[in-house]
């Protein structure tokens, strides 16, 4: 299956951009109707599948990005010597969860929910590219707010924040605390505070 001119142009555009591109921008640059963008992306993807290409167009937060299929992750990681995504520590996962469900939020909000200083943890999430600055809030001291990034979506394999699992209800959370869902971990002492 061969690409149409416009599909090839889309490929070139996404290849050059690297980062996710807004459909409006795509429509503008390719001089096509905005409504035609998803179709064009599908076309490109079909073609990649037909030709057993390693590439795929993915959608992240409504924007389009050219990426390597997951099956080829091993060979790519070896090539770019990118460190494999180190598993996130428990504190980092807690902070990330708080930011993901409440964004945009400040460090002190994260700290309030966790009950411990969380500045370092949030900084490490920023360094990992999972979280980014989202301007300042109009509060005393003008604190910086944080939000999750496209990389966050990619690392959790979801297309948009809507796909995050629903927050547990108050009742669930209360009963979890009571019957000690976390208990076993505590007994054998592998809480793992290190990042």
């Amino acid at each position, binding site marked *: 299956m061969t690409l149409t001119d416009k599909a090839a142009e889309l490929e070139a555009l996404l290849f050059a951009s690297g980062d996710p591109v807004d459909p409006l921008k795509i429509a503008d640059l390719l001089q096509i109707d905005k409504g035609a963008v998803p179709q064009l992306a599908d076309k490109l993807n079909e073609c990649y599948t037909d030709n057993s290409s390693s590439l795929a167009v993915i959608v992240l937060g409504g924007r389009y990005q050219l*990426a390597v299929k997951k099956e080829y992750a091993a060979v790519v990681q070896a090539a770019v010597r990118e460190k494999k995504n180190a598993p996130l520590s428990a504190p980092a996962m*807690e902070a990330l969860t708080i930011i993901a469900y409440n964004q945009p939020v400040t460090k002190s909000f994260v700290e309030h929910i*966790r009950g411990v200083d969380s500045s370092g943890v949030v900084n490490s999430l920023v360094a990992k590219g999972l979280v980014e600055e989202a301007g*300042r809030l109009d509060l005393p001291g003008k604190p910086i707010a944080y939000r999750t990034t496209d990389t966050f979506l990619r690392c959790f394999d979801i297309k948009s924040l809507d796909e995050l699992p629903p927050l547990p209800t108050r009742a669930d959370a209360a009963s979890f605390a009571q019957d000690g869902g976390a208990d076993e971990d505590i007994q054998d002492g592998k809480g793992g505070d290190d990042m």
Partner: protein
Amino acid sequence: MAEIRYKLDVFEGPLDLLLHLISKHKLNINDIPISSLVDQYLEYITDISDDMEYAGEFLEMAARLIYIKTVSLLPQREEGEKLKKELEGRLIEYSAIKLCAAALSGMYTDTPYCVREPLKIDTAEPYSLRHSTAELLAAYGALGRKAKGSKINTAPFQVIVSKRFVSVTTKMVYILKNLYQTGECTLKDIFSDMTDRSERVAAFLAVLELTRNGRILLNEDNTRITFSNSEYSEDIFSDFDSDGAEESDTSETLNASEQG
């Protein structure tokens, strides 16, 4: 101490410890019996007060619990109830986050779709959007008080950055010059008016270097130095003169000691 630290390291913080105690003692999180929670909590952290920095957050929570317990004993119980509800709310909220974090961590993949860096093309076309300077002022305002940055003052660092380096060669000349006049001298004499660390280190290395190439001799208890062979004395300065970088430095030292 290490043991306590280990015991607490298991927890993410005081809220985590409280959740643990609540589940361990099968307390009702929707109506926590504050008195028994305080006791259990204090028992848990009883030994950590030596290490305030580490245990600060745990101790703060202890203080809060005790405060809630205290106000609950007052005839006007509203405040106690309010604080207790607030704590219960926080605990439930934190518990929800822990649940959710566990679910999310199952979704985290260490082999995501790989993407690439944007193509690096030098378009030689810089940023061309137009802005008004008012946007700068607005950004300045958003910084709040912090924007009141003063220019970097390099003066306090001058001491560090422009610290004098005394070359070993200079000191070798200085030592030999001393020996011309006196024939021998004590190490103490050499170091006596040196206060600068760099100077002392250079002088020490100079002694070692002169000893190594046989121009001076150290006595048995390493306190006095003497010329080992006077016939070298003529050539010494010509040796050093070839060392261009050191030249001016050296002659300055010579002039100074000649005058003296």
